[in-house]
């Protein structure tokens, strides 16, 4: 596992070098655009992290989790990741906020932390995506696309659970 990141980075740099690209200035350029991304992410992160830690401190999160646990226990999904599952299809920055709250709270290497990371990485902001893609078309009903997208998401979450719990990937 520890070799994945180094090999990806090496591959990219060697490939770019072999094509005689200005690797260093490209990197600087890209790292600069990362700053814009961070600037955009900061306000929603403040909003979501604040609200999420308030929910936790007030006891509402625990109540919510124990309310859901009979249902989620049946499918083997830890109720702690449910807030992420619920916000993920609606808001990307919201999901980042909730994920980072989960990682800070349960630890990045815990089962919950790993599962939350995998769920976040393998699903998308489904409803936002559907809205954006159909916005400029003449289509009046999105009825046909929504169920398929949701089936895909559920399969992704199930696979994430299987990967983390059973396969130990």
């Amino acid at each position, binding site marked *: 596992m520890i070799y994945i990141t180094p090999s990806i980075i090496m591959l990219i740099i060697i490939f770019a070098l072999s094509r005689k690209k200005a690797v260093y200035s490209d990197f600087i350029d890209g790292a600069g655009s990362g*700053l814009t991304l961070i600037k955009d992410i900061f306000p929603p992160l403040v909003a979501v992290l604040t609200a999420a*830690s*308030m929910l936790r401190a007030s006891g509402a999160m625990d109540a919510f989790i124990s309310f859901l646990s009979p249902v989620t226990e049946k499918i083997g999904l830890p109720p702690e990741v449910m807030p992420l599952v619920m916000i993920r299809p609606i808001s990307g920055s919201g999901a980042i906020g909730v994920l*980072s709250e989960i990682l800070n709270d349960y630890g990045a290497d815990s089962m919950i932390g790993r599962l939350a990371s995998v769920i976040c990485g393998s699903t998308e902001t489904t409803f936002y995506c559907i809205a954006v893609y159909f916005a400029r078309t003449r289509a009046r009903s999105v009825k046909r696309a929504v169920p398929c997208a949701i089936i895909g998401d559920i399969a992704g979450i199930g696979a994430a659970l299987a990967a983390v719990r059973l396969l130990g990937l």
Partner: protein
Amino acid sequence: MTYIWSAMIIISFISAGITGRMDETVNAMIGGTQTAVSTLISFAGAMCFWTGIMKIAENSGIADLLCRLISPVVKRLFPSAGEKARYYISMNLTADLLGMGNASTPMGMLASEELDRENKTPSRPSDDMCMLVVLNTTCFQLIPSTIIALRGAAGTSDPASIILPIWFASAVSVVVGVAAVKVMCFLSGRRARGGV
């Protein structure tokens, strides 16, 4: 998001009133903002590093290579789409794969406009349009850089250890999503032929 966020705040205060944890909740409000800042700062370096690496990849022509590699797949998945639409779709999916969010959405919108133009029943999204949306919502990303950076910020020795399970889960969701679209197209196609 307006309602969700407002509800989160209001429910927190109500629940704090009931459980008598108002102090902790107000502290958490301040603490949350601090967590946001510290998360962002420890996350900023890793994020910029990854966007830098991805920029190298982008400029090196990996994107064109990938785009050419996936174009036969695109042809299979979008049998009735025209040349131009297929080009936009390939670019859109390539950008998704490389996690180039700001390149992916415009390409995807161009693709769906193009598919819309080809659509003979404009008020009803065509099969290809559904396929495009589902491919985007199930989204396969080769390097989930934001999540790697976030995990690094939360303190783990191996933040990238979730890459393999993410690939696995993404692959499953793409395959299931595509299958769902195909089944749906088949069913509605049969209804259109059999009925009316």
